[in-house]
């Protein structure tokens, strides 16, 4: 790969990072806190591309202008040739940088969904403490909140109340439905699901990966995740409405 191509790849990679960072695209892959770093590194990559082009242009201009056969310049060029011929055989591997670029710009793969969720055990853990809940009215809980309260608090503060939870649908091998949210610490490579099994009036047609806002009530029924034996609480569903994918598809409440 020569320098023009390198500059182009650097520029495109930087632009892709900026694009992902300025839109909500980056939230499909990494935690929200990485945004400033993403933007800064995108800017640095673009600066490196511009600097490469600039020094290249200046170098070639310099070469042309004092290329009147003075021996010094010749020597210099020779030394470079020699060094480069030995050294830079390996940047073949740099071509691989085109792959993530294409994946990010052309495909922009979606956030992890039901496929990963059903292959990984629920990551539910005993919490440090519980947030205070509003005393009256329907409760807006996230998947992790409901699951921890149902399993480790035995539903003490949520029993008998109407609960609203948003998550995506996943079906296990037998077709039983779960409401899932992936919890994220740093990037999607470490994302882990937290699952709630659904019972009650479940919509007749459920498509995996579709986001639902489920309204229901606590039930003491529990099951075990077949993957890691982790506890999965049930929720008695009363109604379910499709909702668009949230801005941040992952639950990041764990890393704060």
């Amino acid at each position: 790969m020569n320098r023009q191509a390198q500059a182009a790849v650097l520029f495109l990679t930087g632009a892709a990072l900026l694009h992902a960072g300025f839109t909500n695209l980056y939230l499909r892959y990494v935690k929200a806190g990485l945004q400033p770093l993403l933007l800064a590194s995108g800017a640095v990559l673009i600066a490196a591309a511009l600097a490469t082009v600039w020094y290249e242009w200046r170098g070639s201009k310099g070469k042309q202008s004092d290329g009147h056969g003075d021996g010094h310049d010749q020597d210099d060029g020779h030394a470079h040739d020699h060094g480069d011929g030995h050294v830079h055989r390996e940047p073949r591997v740099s071509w691989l940088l085109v792959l993530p670029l294409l994946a990010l710009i052309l495909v922009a793969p979606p956030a992890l969904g039901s496929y990963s969720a059903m292959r990984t055990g629920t990551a539910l853990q005993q919490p440090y403490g519980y947030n205070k809940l509003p005393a009256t009215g329907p409760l807006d809980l996230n998947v992790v909140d409901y699951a921890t309260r149902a399993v480790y608090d035995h539903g003490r503060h949520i029993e008998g109340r109407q609960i609203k939870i948003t998550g995506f649908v996943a079906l296990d091998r037998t077709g039983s439905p779960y409401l899932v949210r992936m919890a994220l610490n740093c990037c999607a490579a470490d994302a882990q699901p937290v699952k709630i099994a659904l019972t009650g009036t479940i919509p007749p047609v459920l498509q995996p990966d579709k986001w639902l806002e489920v309204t229901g009530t606590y039930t003491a029924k529990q099951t075990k995740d077949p993957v890691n034996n982790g506890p999965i609480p049930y929720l008695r569903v009363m109604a379910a409405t499709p909702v668009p994918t949230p801005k941040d598809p992952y639950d990041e409440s764990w890393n704060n």
Partner: protein
Amino acid sequence: MAITKAAPTGADSHEPVDGLPATRPPDPNSPDPNPSDSNPSDSNPSDAKPSDSKSPLVLTMLLLLLVLLQGPIRGALSAPVMQSWMTVFVAVLVQALPFLVLGVLLSAAIAVFVPASFFARALPKRPVLAVPVAGMAGAVLPGCECASVPVAGALVRRGVTPAAALAFLLSAPAINPIVLTATAVAFPRNPEMVLARFAASLLVACVMGWLWQRLGRTDWLRLPERPHYDGQSKGAAFWGSVRHDVMHAGGFLVIGAMAAATLKAVAPASWLRTAAENPVVAILALAILAVLLSICSEADAFVAASLTQFSLTAKLAFLVVGPMIDLKLFAMQAGTFGRGFALRFAPATFALAIAGAVLTGAVLL
């Protein structure tokens, strides 16, 4: 919106092509074989060999072809396995690139602005003492393992004794404040885990440094040479180093990310349950898992904490092995220090890291 973005950038990459003498136009139908022909040198601007001037053209053709074939490609990639693979692949890269850029900037600054004499004064003369000092110095590099590889490479080039640079390479991703804080947050009920991680990582880094000093041979360490920066201005040298490191380490990072994504998307997680039952197998299993998953050291504590069926010592092994050696790091080390080095260094690090974790676990946990 992702599509509209692609069009102007594709057009941009035309520019360098137009400016160059296209002596041998490549066959537009087969862009794949071309990259391998056209690589040979990251050349000097002056020697416009035919093969060199081809690579921007190849790049343009490749991008255009892929923009045209978007539909069919998307169809092929819509299977759940492929989608999950791509998401993890992109995620590992998007997460690692900022830290790689940080490391590359630091490494370029070391190479260009810090005189070699500084390190001679800052580190003890005797390598035996320089190793622990360099290991402790790892605590100041904030970030994950992607940053430490280029920095360690720059240190060796700057005349720092390799044993000390390697101790730094191993300790920096594990003992910096960000990672230790993340560990404390992930293990709220076991604060001793933070101390154990710090002690075990530093211990292993120093032992590896001393081991290299006794047994290491300089001919194993093949740092790819650089163009000489002496004749250039500081700015040119700095950006030249940044460009070189990003292109180089970035390429290896892609290999590592592909390996990690493949593992995450394909390997079944249920075998872990069987492994957890035997304490010895459990430690080995988590150590291997750390290598295969290649998770950033800032996040690995949370993953370790979620492996609830495993003992604390096994989790410690996961946390000590992961930042020192994993698939992504192996690829990057092979690229920075040479394949012969990586093939010897990686297994030794792996074995020592497990031993260090078990030892520390026995004392502290």
